[in-house]
C-alpha cells in the first residue's frame, strides 16, 4: 500500500464549451481545498498536446499517484488521459474522469449557479473515489491458431477455405457422411446457373487439397470448454472421439426446408416440395405440363411468423428451369409478396415473367385449394375463384432450424431465437458475431440465406474469427468480476444472472469466474447477496467513498 496519496486535478475549459458556463477559476480553487489534492491545473483544452503533456509533467513534478480530469465525456477521452498516466509512469487505472461538460455546462447552461454547484459536487466525489482506486493490470492468454467450423455445407466449407487461405488451421465437422449440406441434392444455383453439385464438388476438392483443413464427417460435437483463444472441443466422428484445441469457433450448422406434412395435400408425389422438384429437374424426370407453385407454405403464419427470405427466388429459378425444358409448360406461382430484392433477383423475376410464368397473388384469408388435377385460387384482378390446371403442385416451404440447433446452442452457450435460429450479438452491426467473444455464425444457422449470401457471411465470419487467430495472445484488462470464495454462500445467484454463462461452481462448491470469459457487465456483483463478488475499478469502497463525498 502506498504511504501518501498525492492527487492532481486538471480542469478543462473545452474552449467555451465548459468555460462559457462554469467558472473554472472557482472550480480550481475549490479542488485545491479537497483532501490529498496537491496540484490543480486549468487547461484551455486538456485533450490537446499541451494538455496531455501538462498531465505528464505534473505527475513528475508533484510526484502524483492519482489523476483526476474534469472535462468532457470519458466515452471519447478517457483512453487518451489513461495513456498519459501510463506514459507518466503510473497505473492507467489510477485515473478518474469527471464529465463537467455533458453533465454540467451543456445540460444546465441556463442555470449557471446550479451547474457550478454540480460541477463542484462531481469533482469532490471523483477525488474521494480516487483515493480508493486500485491498480489494475492486464493479463494475457495464449491463442490457439486453429478454428473449429461446425457444419460443412456451402457456408462452413467457404469459411474453412477462407481461414486456411488466411493461414490458419481448421477443424471442420460435418454431421452427415459427406460434405455439401443442402446443396448436395439441389439442381442449379441461381443466378450463376452453376450446378449445385458441381459447386459442392469444387469446394470439397479444394478442401481435400488444402493441407490446413482437417474434415471429420459423421461427426457430433460433444463438449466445448474454455474461452476465446483457448477452447477445447470434443467431438466424435465415425466411432472415434477427438479433442482439438481451437482459438475460435464458427457455427455453420445450416437449416432444412420444412416438410409440409398435412399441408395442401402434400404426398411427395403429385404435391411435392421445391427441393423434391429440384431432384426431379436434376435427374431430368419432370414430365408435368402444368405446374402450380404455392409460396409461404408453413411460413408467415401465426405459428411460424417469419419470411424465409429465399423461397420466392427458389420458385422463380425453378419455374425458369421448367420453362427451359418445356417451353409450353404452364407454370403458375401463387404468392403473397414476391421477395425479389436487389438487382439480380429482380432481374430474374422479370425474366420469369417474360418467359411466361404467371404470378397470381393470394391472401392468407383465401388460400389456394389443391384439388384433383387443379388448384382453385381467388384471382384478385378477376375478382373471382379460378381453377388452374395442375398435374404437379410444388410447395415452397421455409427453411427451418435443424433439430440439433438446441444442443449446439447448449454446448457453446450461445443463444437461439424462438424459431431456433442462432441469435447474433447485434442485429445491425454484429450480424456474424455472438455476444460471446470468439464464436461466430454464418449461413442458414443464422437465418435463411441465398448461396451468395451464405458465402458472403462465411467469408465474413472467417474474417471475424481471424481477428482472434491472428494474435499470439489475447490481452484483457482486469476490469472484471472477482469472487472472494471465503464469502461465497454457493447460492447460484451469479450463475443464474450472468448473460454470458461465465460463473460456475468449482469442486469445492464455491463460485468461480474465469477472468478471460468475464465480459465485465457487473450484474453478478449487484446480485450477489453475500457481497462476495467485487468488480475491478468499481469496488464498493470506491462507490461508498463517492456517495459519502456527495452527502458530506
Amino acid at each position, binding site marked *: 500500500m502506498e504511504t501518501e496519496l498525492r492527487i492532481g486535478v486538471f480542469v478543462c475549459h473545452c474552449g467555451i464549451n465548459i468555460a462559457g458556463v462554469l467558472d473554472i477559476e472557482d472550480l480550481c480553487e475549490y479542488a485545491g481545498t479537497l483532501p490529498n489534492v496537491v496540484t490543480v491545473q486549468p487547461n484551455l483544452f486538456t485533450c*490537446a498536446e499541451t494538455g496531455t503533456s501538462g498531465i505528464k509533467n505534473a505527475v513528475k513534478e508533484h510526484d502524483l499517484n492519482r489523476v483526476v480530469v474534469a472535462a468532457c465525456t470519458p466515452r471519447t477521452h478517457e483512453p487518451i488521459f489513461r495513456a498519459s498516466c501510463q506514459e507518466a509512469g503510473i497505473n492507467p487505472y489510477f485515473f478518474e474522469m469527471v464529465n463537467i461538460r455533458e453533465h454540467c455546462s451543456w445540460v444546465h447552461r441556463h442555470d449557471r449557479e446550479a451547474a457550478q454547484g454540480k460541477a463542484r459536487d462531481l469533482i469532490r466525489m471523483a477525488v474521494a473515489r480516487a483515493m480508493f482506486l486500485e491498480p489494475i493490470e492486464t493479463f494475457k492468454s495464449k491463442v490457439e491458431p486453429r478454428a473449429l467450423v461446425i457444419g460443412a455445407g456451402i457456408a462452413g466449407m467457404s469459411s474453412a477455405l477462407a481461414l486456411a487461405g488466411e493461414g490458419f488451421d481448421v477443424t471442420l465437422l460435418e454431421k452427415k457422411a459427406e460434405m455439401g449440406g443442402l446443396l448436395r441434392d439441389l439442381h442449379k444455383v441461381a443466378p450463376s446457373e452453376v450446378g449445385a453439385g458441381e459447386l459442392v464438388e469444387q469446394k470439397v476438392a479444394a478442401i481435400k487439397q488444402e493441407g490446413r483443413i482437417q474434415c471429420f464427417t459423421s461427426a457430433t460435437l460433444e463438449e466445448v470448454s474454455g474461452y476465446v483463444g483457448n477452447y477445447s472441443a470434443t467431438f466424435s466422428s465415425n466411432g472415434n472421439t477427438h479433442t482439438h484445441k481451437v482459438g475460435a469457433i464458427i457455427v455453420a450448422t445450416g437449416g432444412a426446408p420444412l416438410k409440409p406434412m398435412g399441408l395442401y395435400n402434400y404426398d411427395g408425389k403429385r404435391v411435392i416440395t421445391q427441393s423434391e422438384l429440384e431432384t426431379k429437374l436434376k435427374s431430368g424426370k419432370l414430365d408435368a405440363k402444368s405446374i402450380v407453385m404455392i409460396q409461404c407454405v408453413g411460413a408467415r403464419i401465426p405459428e411460424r411468423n417469419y419470411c424465409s427470405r429465399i423461397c420466392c427466388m427458389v420458385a422463380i429459378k425453378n419455374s425458369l428451369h421448367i420453362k427451359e425444358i418445356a417451353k409450353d409448360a404452364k407454370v403458375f406461382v401463387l404468392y403473397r409478396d414476391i421477395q425479389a*430484392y436487389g438487382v439480380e433477383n429482380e432481374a430474374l423475376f422479370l425474366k420469369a415473367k417474360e418467359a411466361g410464368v404467371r404470378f397470381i397473388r393470394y391472401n392468407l384469408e383465401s388460400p389456394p385449394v389443391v384439388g384433383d388435377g387443379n388448384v382453385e385460387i381467388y384471382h384478385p384482378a378477376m375478382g373471382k375463384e379460378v381453377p388452374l390446371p395442375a398435374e404437379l403442385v410444388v410447395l415452397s416451404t421455409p427453411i427451418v432450424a435443424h433439430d440439433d440447433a438446441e444442443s449446439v446452442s447448449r454446448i457453446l452457450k450461445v443463444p437461439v431465437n424462438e424459431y431456433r435460429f442462432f441469435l447474433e450479438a447485434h442485429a445491425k452491426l454484429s450480424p456474424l458475431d455472438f455476444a460471446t467473444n470468439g464464436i461466430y455464425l454464418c449461413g442458414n444457422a443464422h437465418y435463411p440465406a441465398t*448461396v451468395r449470401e451464405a458465402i458472403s457471411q462465411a467469408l465474413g465470419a472467417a474474417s*471475424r474469427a481471424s481477428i482472434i487467430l491472428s494474435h499470439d495472445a489475447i490481452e484483457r484488462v482486469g476490469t472484471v468480476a472477482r469472487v472472494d470464495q471465503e464469502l461465497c454462500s454457493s447460492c447460484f445467484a451469479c450463475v443464474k444472472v450472468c448473460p454470458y454463462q461465465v460463473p460456475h461452481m468449482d469442486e469445492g462448491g464455491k463460485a468461480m469466474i474465469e477472468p478471460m470469459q468475464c465480459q465485465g457487465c457487473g450484474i453478478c456483483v449487484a446480485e450477489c447477496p453475500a457481497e462476495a463478488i467485487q468488480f475491478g475499478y468499481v469496488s464498493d469502497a470506491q462507490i461508498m467513498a463517492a456517495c459519502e463525498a456527495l452527502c458530506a
Partner: protein
Amino acid sequence: MSRDVLVIGGGIAGIQASLDLAEQGFTVYLVERLPSIGGKMAQLDKTFPTNDCSICIMGPKLFEVERHPNTQLLTYTDVEAVKGGAGNFTVTVRKKARYVDEAKCTACGLCAEKCPVSVPDVFNMNMDTRSAIYKYFPQGIPSVYTIDDSVCRIFKGKKCNICAKICEAKAVNYEQKDAVFDLNVGAIIVATGFDVFDPSDIKPYGYGTIPDVITAMEFERLLNASGPTGGHLERLSSLNTKAEIEQLEKQIKHAKAGLKRAEKNGQNSDKVDEVKKRLAEMNESLDGLKAKEASLAELRDIAFVQCVGSRDLRYNAHCCSYGCMHSVKEAVVATEHESELKSTIFFTDMRAYGKEFHEYCLRGGSEYGIHFVRGRVAEIAQGDGGRPVVWCEDMDTRKVEQHPFDLVVLATACVPSQGSASLATMLGFNLDESGFVKTDPNKPVDTSVQGIFVCGCAQGPMDIPSSVSLASAAASMAVQTVKALG
C-alpha cells in the same frame, strides 16, 4: 510489394472492413471524399427492426476506426489514379485542403458560431443551414472543422478572417494547400456506397413543386434530434412558412424604425403615409402567414409511397432492398413522436425478408396502426390548401382512390453513387446492368480485377447487416490476397 490495404469509402461498410483488417494487424488507409466518415448510416435517425438510434450505435465504430493504431484516416480525400496490380498497387490520392489544421483543431465550434456565411446544410438534406466553416455533422470523425472554399468570404476575395481571429487553438490556415501523394497497397476494397435517387425526374409525383412531398432521407432528418427541427415532427411547408414569417418580421421591424425616424425628422406626410400603408400591408400578410403556420402545425396523416424510381423500367429496374422496411420503420418512429399520427404505406410487394422483419411489419400494423395499401401510386396532386393528394388503385379492392395527406414520403431508389462509374474506369473493374460493381454470385466480393474487392451498397442495394457482413468478407479476401502476393 505491400501488405497494406486501401479502403475507399468511409460508410459503415468501409469502416467495418477497415476495422477487421486493422484488428488482424494490417495497415489500412481509409479514404473518404467527405470531411467526415459515417456515410449514409450517420444520416439515419433509427434503424429497423430494433429501432436502435443509428448514430448512437455507429458512433463507437467511428471512434474505434479513427483511434486504431493500424488505421490511417484520409478524410476529405479523393482517389486520383491507380497503377499496378494485386499485391502491388500504387494509388495517388489528393487530400483536399481543409484550411484547418487537423492536429490543432479541438472542434470547440466557436468559429462556426461566428462565421457570417450561411449556406444549405447538405447533411440535413438542405433543410437547414450551416456556416462556411463547418463540421459535417455533430458526431463527425475526425472531430475537426473544415472551410468550404466555395462559399467562404476569404476565398471570394472579400474581407473576413473572423474564424482565424477567434480560434484559440490557432488552427485556421487559409494558406493550406491540397496534398497529393502515393500509397502503396497490396489490395483495395471499394466501399463507395450508394446515392438516393432524385425523384424530381418523376413529374407526376410533384417532388420539388409540392412542398410536403419529401424523400425518405429528408424524413429521417426531420425525425432526428440533431436535424433541422430538433426532432420535432413538422412538415416542410410549415418550416418554410416559419422562415417567411421570420423574414417578414425583420422587414416590419425595419419599416417601423424607418417610420419613427421619418416622423421624428418631420418628413412630408405623403411619404409617412406611404410607409404606414406598406407597414399595414406587411402586418396583414404577417397575420396571413401566422394563420397558415397555425393550420400547418398539426401533422396527422402521412403517406409513404414505395418503389419510387425502383422496380420501374423507366428509371431503375432493380429493387432497393430496404425501402419497405425503411418506410415501416419511419412510420413506427413517427408514431412514437406523435401518437395520434396515422400512417399509410402504398406498396407493391411488402419485402420484409430479413430476420424479424415480417414480425416488425405485423407489429407496425397492430401496435402502431399503420394502414397498408397494396398498389402503386399513379400521381400526387395538390389539393386544398396545397395539401398533397395521392391517387392510387388499391389492388385488393380494385378501386382507384384519392387520399389527401399532410405529408407524403417517397421511398426513393438506391442508385450507384455518383463517382462509381469513373472509379470503375480508373480501377478497371466491371459494373452490372444497374451500374453497381459486378461480382460473381459464388465469389460475392471479388470484382473483375484481381486484388480489388467490393462491399456494401457499391455492390448492390442492401441493408446495414448485409453491408457489414460483406465488409468482413471483403476484408478476408484482402487478407488472403496480401498474404499470398503482398
